[in-house]
């Protein structure tokens, strides 16, 4: 079994862009397109990426697409699908890593209410762009996965909640859903089985918090994108108070492969507790940024140095965030023995999260980096609960004054204290997501912060 596959993503100007779709800046949105495929090996998630017209139904079906869907609808019971996915060891790829099959099994089977499957395509975690690649280049894979998951919980309405800024992605996805409807893959009486399923694509309005599953549901309900207090959990009281499963794009996109090849084939890949492959979005000071599909358990250092070509321009590595901006930064010495799986990254004091790998070289000012991240969270805090609403902005203001030469000696401990007061005390994980990186930057690069405060200037960039 080859260790991993990698593909590099580059930006291109898409053609035939509908003029409706424009980014926040008024410019036309641009899509990601894959080009160089490094390794000729079996790919699970990226198997169609790079193939000409990969986004079309014709291409997708010519490569075996929707065979799993037919197999599921025509020959399987919902419980069998759940069991198969449980047996595969698949864990949710949205960041929390919760076992997917188990999540499905929490949906009550005897509920008189409608059940909903929601695909979380609100990918917004800074440094993460893997779902975007799938949405833009292989929308049918995630649609097929959405259908399979919906069938597993016997939902008749599935929603794909896509990030509002993904203008090109929405266009690709809507076309693909329309194609699938036309082909009878979605709709009434699918394959003559009597099973009905509607798929509705819903664009978000541009809030990071709407990637959090309960905020997503609030937004989908037409309300303010506010996380809901738990319990109750979405599995029993989700969308419109009905049983709901929310799955990430990457989680869903691998389902056709699992159903096609069997749980055992997926279970055979990866580590004891982290199965299969995972997509990593690599960005920052790295020679070959892009989206990579990596078998779980692959050595982090080797991945960065060999597969991604190492730190760009021959510079030294200063720090790397392994799982998107909300996860603690790791220093070079901390990743020596880390492997790319949930347990190994957690043991190193960070989290695998969304797999958004942000590489920072020796010229990076960690004060500015920390402030940049703090600013993001201050801007995106929904404002619902007190510690996050007040704390995120407070931290941002202190990072800001350190960055601009007005920091005080006591500021570092103050931020650590504020972060500690937010951590674990909020409605949703956003508070932790803001507190973790703030604390990690200070703890791990304290000298740099202290020098910044003492000299009232940046000591890294001069």
């Amino acid at each position, binding site marked *: 079994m080859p260790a991993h596959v990698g593909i590099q993503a580059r930006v291109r100007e898409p053609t035939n862009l509908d003029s409706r779709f424009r980014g926040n800046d008024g410019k036309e949105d641009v899509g990601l397109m894959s080009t160089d495929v490094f390794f000729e090996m079996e790919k699970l998630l990226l198997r169609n990426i790079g193939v000409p017209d990969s986004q079309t139904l014709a291409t997708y079906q010519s490569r075996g697409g929707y065979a799993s869907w037919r197999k599921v609808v025509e020959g399987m019971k919902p419980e069998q699908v759940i069991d198969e996915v449980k047996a595969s060891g698949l864990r949710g790829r949205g960041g929390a890593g919760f076992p997917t099959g188990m999540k499905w099994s929490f949906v009550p089977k005897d509920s008189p209410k409608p059940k909903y499957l929601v695909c979380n395509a609100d990918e917004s975690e800074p440094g993460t762009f893997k779902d975007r690649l799938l949405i833009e280049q292989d929308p049918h894979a995630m649609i097929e996965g959405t259908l399979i998951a919906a069938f597993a919980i016997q939902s008749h309405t599935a929603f794909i909640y896509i990030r509002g800024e993904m203008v090109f992605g929405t266009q690709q996805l809507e076309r693909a859903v329309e194609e699938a409807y036309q082909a009878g893959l979605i709709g009434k009486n699918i394959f003559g089985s009597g099973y009905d399923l509607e798929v509705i694509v819903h664009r978000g309005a541009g809030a990071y918090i709407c990637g959090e599953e309960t905020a997503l549901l609030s937004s989908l309900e037409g309300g303010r994108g506010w996380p809901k207090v738990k*319990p109750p959990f979405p599995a029993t009281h989700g969308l419109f108070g009905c049983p709901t499963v929310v799955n990430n794009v990457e989680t869903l996109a691998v389902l056709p492969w699992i159903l096609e090849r069997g749980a055992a084939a997926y279970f055979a890949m990866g580590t004891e507790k982290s199965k299969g492959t995972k997509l990593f979005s690599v960005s920052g000071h790295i020679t070959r940024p892009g989206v990579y599909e990596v078998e779980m358990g692959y050595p982090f250092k080797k991945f960065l140095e060999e597969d991604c070509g190492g730190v760009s321009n021959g510079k030294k590595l200063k720090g790397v965030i392994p799982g998107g901006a909300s996860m603690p930064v790791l220093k070079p010495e901390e990743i020596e023995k880390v492997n790319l799986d949930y347990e190994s990254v957690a043991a190193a004091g960070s989290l695998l999260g969304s797999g958004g790998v942000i590489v920072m070289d020796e010229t990076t000012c960690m004060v500015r980096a920390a402030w940049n991240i703090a600013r993001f969270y201050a801007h*995106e805090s929904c404002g619902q609960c*007190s*510690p996050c609403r007040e704390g995120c*902005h407070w931290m941002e203001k202190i990072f800001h004054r350190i960055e601009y030469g007005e920091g005080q000696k006591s500021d570092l401990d103050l931020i650590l204290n504020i972060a500690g007061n937010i951590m674990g*005390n909020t*409605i949703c994980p956003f508070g932790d997501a803001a507190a973790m990186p703030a604390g990690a930057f200070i703890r791990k690069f304290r000298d740099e912060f202290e020098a910044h405060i003492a000299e009232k200037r940046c000591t890294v960039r001069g």
Partner: protein
Amino acid sequence: MDPVKIILDGKEVVTTKGTTVIKAAADAGVAIPHYCYHPKLSIAGNCRMCLIEIEKMPKLQIACNTQVAEGMSVLTQSPKVLAVRKAVMEFLLINHPVDCPICDQAGECQLQNYYMEHNREASRFEVGKIHDRKKTIFGPNVIFDGERCIKCTRCVRFCQEITKTDELAVVNRGDHSTIALFDGAVLDNPLSANVVDICPVGALTDRDFRFKVRVWYLEKTPSICPGCSTGCNISVEAYQNQIARFKPRVNEAVNSHWICDEGRYCFHDLAGGERLTAPMIRQEGGLVPTTWEQALQAVYTGLSSAKPLAAILCGRNTNEEAFLFAKLIKKLSLEAALEVFYQERELTETQKILMSPDRAPNFRGARDMGVSSNGGFDALMGKLVAGNFSSAYVVGEDLVGFDEKIRAALQKLSFLVVQDTHMTETAKLAHVLLPAVHFGEKEGTYTNRKGRVQKLNAAVIPPDGALQDSEIFMQLLAAADEAVRYTSPSEIFAAIAREVTAYQGLDYDSIGEQGVELRSGGGGAS
């Protein structure tokens, strides 16, 4: 209701399945601090002030959204809990203007109270507070100060869940989140001012009350709203013998936590303005002051001679007053027609949440006491307009103000007695005018529309020269040779409990602050 045993701060507490920790603790006398939680609103869980420790759970949990479980060990005073309360207090105060010296909420502000209980530290925040809208008018009765707001969303939930009028929403994000009216909306629903009561801080204040009195100077008297026959439980809050505001008192059998705006502000009309302070008698050229002795003698003589008599009692008179009034009128003339003022109006769905269609808080009690000739108030007024009476005794109601047609009817009477607190249009027509007291100056009982007997208490002292209605009725009874001498409303109530069937067995003291139900099928004089 399955019993559930929990361990609350080491002590065993028995509660019921499905109860939240915050409620179970409150029932056991342990107050867990909170802002967003309100027993009548949905759980928001946003203030994080009620975080408590539950054994075997790694993270602190909000007490408002955690249901009790058998054997659950809850710590409300552990070091972790005390630390997080302190932290939440700090978060809530960093962008707060701390303008207590000019804030009306000062003295009844949960930010002040909890700061003193749970923080008491100097602020570590020195990087510039967020500025928000000040003195923003939300509606006729409510004004908003965005900088004092802690975004607990009680007001938003009240308008969504209680009145279902949806005027308010949270807008913007992060620390710029604020409460705002929907475009084009005005917070003018019939219960709008309740948002002021449930606002735990000084963000929403009462436009009528603000800047009038510091709350710690208020003298608070539990009483009953005189606005209508719902009988909402209120606290009459007075300063320097003037009623400054009404606040709702919780009574789940009547008004829950709320009162309507009409009731809340009705004291201005009922208790404000210039008072009558001396009895008056009509002479050539108009009404001139006289002594009580002469006035009452004139009333007795006039009413005894000019028959038939129409007697109209105010809907705000107490049961005790109505009891004496019925006795008096029957003593004066067996043919007299007597009724309690009663008039209905159409109510909207939102008004119906609390309001009754009348403006006669004790019409039911008055009828129970015998103030009824079985024809009804409208019939009596019809006869009055038709000229069927020679004399009338009108207590506490401005009939002319209510219907101008009645002016001519009253002018034709050979004898008119008006007993009231103010110089109304009706009072101006009187042959004898008796200065009486209003609802806030008397003690007694009201029986609400649903038959709940509740206690009214005197919140302010009547002006010199005015007499209690019951005193006037007793003196007139004495003039009519009916020697009844009660020295207190409780003595009159004891007589009611003896003589009025539906009230038999009731005890004045046991009415308490929450009232008692009449026995089913109650009503009607003995």
